[in-house]
């Protein structure tokens, strides 16, 4: 427990400068856009004259110098104020909080599915390296890994939603159906099957390959030979000795892939019309809504930091060698 708390504190402290760099660089990027949020707003309402523009800019503080505006933004962030969305005419924080749960559900399910299935298949493949089963799984995983997730989403949509009509084509639940409790959960689950599958398949392939490679590496280590010399059952050797060690790099990978999965959710949510955080990013882009885009990037960074931290804590729990040098114990 102490190790976990120490890790959290250390990570939180070192994340602040990184987050600040993210904020400053994104701010600079969005600055270089021609026209600011007021221009975009005026464009969307069909034009306006200079005085209206000027007064709007004064109201939003957009007429100040860049460093001043940057400082204003950062200090608002500290108060959890992410700014005002031009396209939606609502606070960015509200939009984010509204859309984030759907994406978390999508990503969480995809992660669970890909970790569970990917590692299980990887253990199967790695239990007998170079066997027929191993080669077959390696080949299949290579092809799956090459499939673009958005195309896969379309193909799955064609097969299961359009042709077979087993699953719904879009949305996160049947609108205005009035369902509650378990039936609502089942409805949401049905809507999520295809998007989760499209998002997860690539990661199933990746985790399969990583687990299998890890298994092949660990098989060659001496403690496996020692386990064999103790006459332990094959199942115990494969699971408790080889897999238990081979899965450690996979846990680290989970953290690294969370950023990529968040990016992938942008396209998947667009295809399946899921009202999530990823789709919000696409809407911010098409609405030329710089404050919203800024807020999305900042929240994404924080999300990835949190996931990485959680992963590190889990890793520390699984590998007793971690964190030893600092504790001196």
């Amino acid at each position: 427990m102490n190790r976990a708390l120490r890790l959290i504190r250390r990570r939180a402290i070192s994340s602040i400068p990184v987050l600040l760099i993210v904020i400053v660089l994104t701010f600079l990027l969005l600055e270089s856009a021609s026209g600011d949020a007021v221009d975009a707003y005026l464009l969307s309402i069909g034009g306006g004259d200079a005085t209206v523009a000027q007064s709007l800019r004064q109201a939003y503080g957009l007429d100040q110098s860049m460093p001043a505006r940057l400082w204003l933004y950062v200090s608002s962030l500290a108060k959890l104020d992410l700014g005002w969305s031009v396209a939606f005419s609502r606070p960015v924080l509200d939009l984010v909080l509204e859309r984030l749960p759907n994406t978390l559900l999508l990503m969480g399910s995809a992660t669970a599915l890909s970790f569970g299935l990917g590692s299980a298949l990887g253990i199967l493949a790695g239990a007998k390296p170079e066997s027929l089963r191993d080669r077959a799984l390696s080949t299949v995983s290579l092809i799956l890994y090459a499939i673009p997730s958005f195309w896969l989403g379309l193909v799955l949509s064609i097969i299961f939603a359009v042709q077979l009509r087993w699953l719904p084509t879009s949305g996160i639940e049947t609108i205005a159906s009035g369902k509650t409790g378990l039936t609502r959960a089942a409805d949401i689950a049905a809507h999520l099957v295809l998007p989760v599958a499209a998002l997860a398949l690539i990661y199933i392939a990746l985790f399969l390959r990583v687990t299998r490679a890890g298994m092949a590496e660990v098989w060659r280590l001496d403690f496996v030979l020692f386990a064999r010399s103790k006459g332990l059952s094959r199942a115990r050797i494969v699971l408790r000795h080889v897999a238990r060690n081979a899965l450690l790099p996979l846990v680290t990978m989970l953290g690294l892939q969370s950023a990529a999965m968040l990016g992938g959710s942008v396209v998947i949510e667009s295809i399946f019309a899921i009202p999530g955080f990823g789709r919000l990013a696409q809407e911010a882009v098409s609405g030329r809504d710089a404050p919203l885009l800024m807020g999305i990037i900042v929240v994404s960074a924080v999300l990835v930091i949190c996931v990485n931290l959680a992963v590190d804590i889990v890793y520390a729990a699984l590998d007793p060698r971690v964190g030893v040098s600092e504790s001196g114990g």
Partner: protein
Amino acid sequence: MSVLCEIRNLSVTYRGQKIPALNGIDLDVIAGERLAIIGESGSGKSTLARAVAGLLPSGSAMNGKMRWSSGHPLQPGRDLGFVFQDPSASLNPVLTIGEQVAEGARQHLGLSWNRAYSQALDMLQRVHIPEPDKALKAFPHQLSGGQRQRVAIAAALAAKPGFLIADEATSALDMVVQAEIVSLLDELVREAGMTLLFITHDIALASGFADRVAIFKDGRLVESGPTGTVLAAPQEAYTKALIASHRDLSTPPLVREVAS
């Protein structure tokens, strides 16, 4: 003086190699004895140990006969315990000491985990690990090299096999610790009446406690016999050279000082 294992014309070639690692070995292992296999690197001594234990890597070609007194080869864990050279590599870094010592007992003695853990505690006491109850929950990286080797010995003997093979079990340890481990092995084997096959390159170490020695060179058995006899009156030139090359504090210096 019953023969535990009768080895006749044993040859072993590893996969992909042309030259055999073991060539035509004829050797008897007598039940209850302490037999030391002595040779330099590449002599095939470790290969013999693995072959006897049935732990050769897959694809190795084995010819010749090994006849066991029980009628079938000994099962690793149940009838046979194996201790390797590098104690750090023998232990799984993510499992507790207790689990790694207990699992052999659980597998072969059919004990529940609780009973297996108390058996493990007993074993850790027998190998003289300090604070064995704490050690049960500790991890390998928390112990010193010598302690890890004691744990490995405890784990190898947890199911109470009758035959122990120690493959260069002391070579990776400091001198003082080496002597401790050797005396531990001696004590355990005597107490339980086990047969011990001790592989080493150090003739002096082996001569301290082995009943019989067998000298290996380049995959062949050069000479074998009771320790005292072989050391006092070596028949083969190689054996003589091995004994002569042994250096201790009483031998004259290799490099003479130049008078300045």
